[in-house]
């Protein structure tokens, strides 16, 4: 079974997705346990894959027994395994969380929702596990299509936001396809490892250069890298709570994974740094993204929209690490894939819980929220501190490596941008904490306890995922040394 683990990770959600409508047709309530089962199995396989990789090295799986480069190959190396475990675990968490929220927002579409949910996750997992460029396009489109559908069933204005996403996403995917096509024309191969060995002789060719550009721009659109982020704010804000919680952390991180693969595995690092200095360009774009996201977030009064702009800022962090292109920078990016996935999923789950209980997302309505939902708000405080970068939470450690990378590369402006963004994030989060925790008083100490607000905490199926993810945020901070020495250190290409 262990040899089949790479393909099982993708096949299980796929098959379960097809069976879900049938189950839902018979009995709606069975859908939820069914998908939990699917995702648990998938997570289990990812963990096995990660442990196998740590034990024995890279796993190669040949689909249908066809040898590469003629057949499609699934490759699980340190980086893929790492991202696989993150994606499957977060999907499982959001699936557990989604029960109450879906029942409230989409009561009559539950089986179909879960079907597309599973397909979406299949797409993500496939992107990470595949070793073939065209196969990646297929899974990218599976993920995107499912995403379009999931977003469109959201609140007022969601179909329009989803439509905009359709247009922009298709442009991105087509650019990616063009890039793959150009590479195929130049080398005759679609397999990533094969391309990596064939391309170095062709680095001078304009075809390869244009291919690289198309690939990076296409991925940047999917990743919502400023200034190609136009589809993200509306789409993730108007989507249903569970959908935002699923898509927001994963789509951007998986796209960042693709970017790292293209820039450092398919194309050798020295291509991305010297032959075509895309890393320099990316680092400046990333700095702009970080500042843009933070500043726009300051202007928002809706908590979910604020988180969306925080997400855009976080994408900037990921690309900045890639752009710095040294060991510490890349360590920071890969660690941030883990940290940010957990932080963003926590943020969106918390907003969903608040919407579920209070029906509003306006920050000004949050008075006394800490009495109504103490655990949720406590989780919010901890995750907020992580986004700001207060130790010992995980967010601090990704920032540590990113700033260290900037210092190593003598990029003082970028280091300054990182520091400044922490302060901007601090303003953002402490403002909300103030609203939720402080009850302003006039005059001096009024005695005793004031108004009694009924405790109406989020339901357990929402609360447990939130708390476990928050615990993860703190734990991963303390364990970052172990994580790096066991996994990430080997995920970085050897020449750094």
């Amino acid at each position, binding site marked *: 079974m262990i040899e089949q683990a790479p393909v099982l990770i993708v096949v299980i959600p796929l098959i379960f997705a097809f069976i879900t409508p049938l189950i839902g047709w018979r009995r709606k309530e069975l859908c939820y346990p069914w998908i939990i089962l699917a995702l648990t199995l998938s997570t289990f396989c990812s963990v096995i894959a990660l442990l196998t990789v740590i034990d024995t090295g890279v796993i190669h799986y040949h689909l249908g027994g066809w040898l590469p480069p003629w057949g499609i190959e699934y490759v699980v190396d340190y980086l893929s395994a790492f991202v696989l475990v993150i994606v499957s675990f977060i999907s499982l968490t959001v699936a557990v969380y989604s029960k109450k929220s879906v029942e409230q927002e989409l009561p009559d579409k539950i089986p179909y929702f879960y079907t597309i949910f599973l397909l979406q996750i299949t797409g993500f997992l496939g992107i990470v596990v595949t070793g073939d460029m065209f196969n990646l396009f297929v899974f990218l489109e599976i993920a995107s299509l499912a995403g379009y559908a999931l977003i469109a069933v959201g609140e007022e204005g969601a179909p329009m936001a989803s439509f905009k996403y359709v247009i922009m996403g298709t442009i991105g995917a087509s650019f990616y396809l063009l890039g793959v096509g150009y590479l195929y024309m130049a080398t005759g191969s679609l397999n990533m490892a094969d391309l990596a060995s064939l391309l170095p002789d062709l680095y001078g060719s304009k075809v390869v250069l244009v291919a690289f550009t198309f690939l990076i721009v296409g991925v940047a659109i999917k990743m919502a890298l400023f200034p190609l982020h136009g589809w993200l704010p509306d789409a993730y804000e108007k989507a249903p709570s569970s959908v935002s919680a699923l898509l927001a952390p994963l789509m951007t991180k998986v796209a960042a994974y693709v970017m790292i693969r293209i820039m450092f595995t398919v194309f050798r690092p020295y291509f991305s740094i010297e032959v075509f200095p895309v890393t320099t360009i990316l680092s400046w774009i990333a700095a702009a993204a970080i500042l843009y996201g933070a500043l726009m977030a300051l202007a928002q009064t809706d908590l979910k929209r604020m988180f969306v702009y925080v997400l855009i800022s976080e994408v900037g962090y990921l690309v900045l690490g890639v752009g710095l292109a040294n060991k510490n920078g890349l360590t920071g990016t890969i660690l941030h894939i883990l940290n940010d996935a957990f932080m963003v999923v926590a943020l969106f789950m918390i907003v969903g819980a608040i919407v579920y209980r209070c029906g509003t997302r306006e920050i000004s309505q949050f008075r006394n929220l800490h009495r109504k939902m103490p655990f949720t708000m406590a989780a919010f405080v901890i995750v907020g501190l992580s986004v*700001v970068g207060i130790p010992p939470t995980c967010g601090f450690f990704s920032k540590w490596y990113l700033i260290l990378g900037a*210092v190593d590369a003598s990029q003082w402006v970028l280091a300054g941008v990182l520091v400044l963004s922490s302060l901007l994030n601090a303003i953002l989060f402490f403002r909300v904490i103030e609203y939720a925790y402080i009850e302003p008083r006039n005059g001096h100490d*009024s005695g*005793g306890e004031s108004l009694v607000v009924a405790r109406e905490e989020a339901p357990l199926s929402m609360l447990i995922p939130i708390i476990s993810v928050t615990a993860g945020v703190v734990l991963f901070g303390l364990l970052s040394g172990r994580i790096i020495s066991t996994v990430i250190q080997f995920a970085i290409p050897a020449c750094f």
Partner: protein
Amino acid sequence: MGVIVSIKPLLAVLVTLAAAVLIIFTGERNRNLREFWTLLASILKFAIVISMVPLILKGNVIEYTIISLTPGIALQFRIDSLGMFFGVLASFLWIITSVYSIGYVRSLDEHAQTRYFFNFALCLSATMGIAFAGNLLTLFIFYEILTVATWPLVYHKETEEAIMAGRKYLVYTLTAGMAILFGIILIYSLTGTTDFRPGGFLSGYGSASMLRFIFVILILGFGVKAALMLMHEWLPSAMAAPTPVSALLHAVAVVKAGVFGCLKVILYVFGPELLHGLSLWLLLAYFVSFTVIVSGMYALAQDNLKRRLAFSTINNLAIIIMGAAMLTPSGIKGAIFHMGGHGFMKITLFFVAGAIYVKTHKENISELDGIGRQMPLTMGAFAIGAIGIAGIPPVCGFISKWYMALGTLEANEVFFLFVLLISAMMDIAYFFPILYNSFFKKPKEDISPHFNEAPMMMLVPLMITAIISIILGIFPNAFFNFFSIASTAAGKILGGI
């Protein structure tokens, strides 16, 4: 002289963390149980800390590594003499402040008491972590936790003024945190380590201008919490917090953490040799003497008692750094001892301010005429504290100022001796009128001339700290070998290990 591995530092930090969790789960349902957790934790913590003192006095270092955070840096506790000093000071004063807090909070029937005690316990955990940190990163981690845990205490009263004070506090301290982080990263990228070594570990790395830059941002960063001018503005505003908060945190824990950080940077990261080589010690000394003089002048102008005390704190903290900046044995000894002595004296003064507020709801000095008749014990304690801060024997302030004066002579910088003398005169100028007014003037409208002291839970702590201030002045080693710890630290730093 060796390294001992012991889990006690971690226990000392965790004990109040556990108490904090228990406090928040006990909540308002059982106030006495909740207060019991606070007191139990404080006594346990003090016991753990004291049990480690004998080892430190023999010249050992106690170490405990929790987990490696990044190659070259671990979350590690390493208690050296300076850390032990701070740890003993903070844990003992916490016991006293807990008792005082309970008295204060109950007399005023304050709101949000659970949150208050919860944050208090967290702050103490963080302070212990700072005191026992073995490297800059561990110190930074606990430093930031301290920032976050003190914020709710600053805005506790939840008035407009308190909320603004809270925001100001955050802006100052978080920005300072970022500056410190940047400095730490620069040090790490230069040397690959951030472990503290008595006598510094930065010699020989990096260019002189880079080292100067790092020193400046680290001192500025830690200087915000230590309320050096011009980053001091948050401290007077933070007097909007309840008095026990001002007393412990802003006279002992938070600001002392800032000074502690500065001292670590000066003595354990850079070290006397390197600072002499870079000519930075003189620059630092001039910078803080500016604070000393100007804060004294500000103090003279304040009518609000707590604000005057706040500026006096700024004054004394700057004196501590000035003494250490002399980089001579007496200077360092005096500076470290003043950290402790000032803690006791200032806390007495703040406790008095709180007692006056609880009894009479008065905050301004101009309203305090004749209050000595009503509260003689309280004002007596105030007198002891004031005398000590001015540097008059037999209170302990005299000893630390004496050694620091010797330090300036050893360093051949008579200018700073004059600064010390001028500040002493200013101390007399802004404390003695209060004493005179309270004892010798006729009371104004509503202060009764009859004996009507503050409640016992507040009166006893402040008398204890006042009496200890006198005892330390006569027998500097009386309190668990306070002075010896300071001397050991100075010896190690200058001897270089």
